[in-house]
């Protein structure tokens, strides 16, 4: 994946799920009354004690531990957008510290499944999901904690 091209605008691939500031955060919800968390903000309300969809927007913890991990060795079908040649994407399910919830995400392409372990500490970063002539479309990714300075993309 090339370094950030200065002429392209970096935009979230989907609005409203994460911030693109430094450092980035997932945008979750906090259920009114119960204080439970959900992600995405508007798709997480399964708590019968808070059924009304009364959800306050919150930024979720940026760090957690790997619950499990894998990869997509074959190119996923649409609506995944493939950049040719397809490089297998690693994926981690990460348990957030404070929220006690597991959130899925790609692993930054500098790390593969051989570099990961259940229980490993990771943090949130941004990566390019795909691009066109004008834009780089961003998604959230996980990377090992303390490895941030070597990351090629984002923060």
């Amino acid at each position, binding site marked *: 994946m090339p370094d950030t091209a200065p002429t392209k605008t970096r935009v979230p691939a989907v609005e409203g*799920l994460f911030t693109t500031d430094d450092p980035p955060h997932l945008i979750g919800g906090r259920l009114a009354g*119960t204080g439970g968390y959900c992600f*995405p903000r508007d798709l997480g309300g399964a708590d*019968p004690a808070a059924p009304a969809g009364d959800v306050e927007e919150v930024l979720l913890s940026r760090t957690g531990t790997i619950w499990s991990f894998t990869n997509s060795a074959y190119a996923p*079908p649409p609506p995944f957008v493939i950049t040719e040649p397809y490089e297998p994407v690693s994926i981690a*399910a990460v348990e957030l510290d*404070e929220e006690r919830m*597991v959130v899925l995400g*790609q692993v930054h392409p500098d790390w593969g499944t051989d570099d990961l372990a259940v229980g490993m500490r990771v943090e949130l970063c941004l990566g390019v999901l795909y691009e066109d002539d004008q834009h780089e479309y961003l998604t959230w990714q996980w990377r090992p904690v303390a490895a941030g300075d070597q990351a090629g993309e984002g923060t």
Partner: protein
Amino acid sequence: MEEIAVLGVGMHPWGKWGRNFVDYGVHAAREALDDAGVDWRDVGFVSGAITVRCGYPGYVAGSTFARALGFTGAQVASSYAACASGATALSVARGQILSGACEVALVVGADTTPKGFLAPNEGRRPDDTDWLRFHLVGATNPVYFALHARRRMALHGATPDDFAAVKAKNSRHGVHNPNARYPKEFSVEDVANSPVVSDPLRLLEICATSDGGAAVVVASMEYARRMGIEDPVRVAGISLVTPTYPDTVIDLPYLATDSAATVDPPDLTFKESIGARVYEEAGIGPEDVDVAEVYDLSSALELDWYEQLGLCEVGEAESLLRSGATSIGGRIPVNPSGGLGAFGEAVPAQAIAQICELAWQLSGRAGERQVDGARVGVTANQGLFGHGSSVLLRR
């Protein structure tokens, strides 16, 4: 829970036949009616399991099958619950029978599937978690299967050879099944030589998508008695539970679990609660089960089901497998049909196919797959977005 009788079962062989799904469903239905000795015109209720891949006739599967068999004025319903559709359709039929709305019902599901990964419908839908997981993460179904496989390796010491051994076992069972798509024996080495799909799972360990059809004729116990059947296979329990909040086990199609920050997770995980409910309805426990048909969407998920159905303690699935207990001839054979590994999944037919296999097993008609003396059988699967599915049959 009051019981109903299984009078007959039928299937169209699984494969990639490329024909209309209605053909498979009608074939299975006619076989089930013949098996039951019931005339189609005596069926009071048709319960169709929906396919979402075959256009409008698939959305109204019940009436599509009824029309293909010949309209008789029977009542009809169509149910969709993804992989749990067949169990849902059976439950609707049971409700009709136990309420007295009909005496005998036909449950049918069939599908014609495209090749490759199952993927969401077209169009940009950022408010649909099923769309988001493909678009933002590239998380196909095998990704979730592999997350659970890797978790087993970390928590319980499972090895890739254990997962491959599940596939090998089920392939040995499936060799004897004329309805299986892959009646071929695979070894652990064959699995290891197939390409990785989602680490640590390999191609031979991931369920394919298939064409197929399955049907069951069910009736009131009184109707069975009037037919002179004193000891039918009976449906003793159906579990269609949803998860209990907070469900903290990541599963497809979600990007995140519920949060346990303010409420502790329930004592039973969602998948554990599926089996617990079916045992509760039947008034028996896992120690009474002789045979099980579980959803091996991946080889590794079968090991999870051993524990979730209470066939062994958590963490003991690998030793149960290695002991040979879950092979035909063992203490508690699992997937004597060959399972999804030998069939591939025909979504709306699959939960019904599980019931067909158990009906054959409990009536001693499973041929070389027969589990000796089987009297109690349980199925388990799970439909996307929280549709539990388990059926308990006994004789």
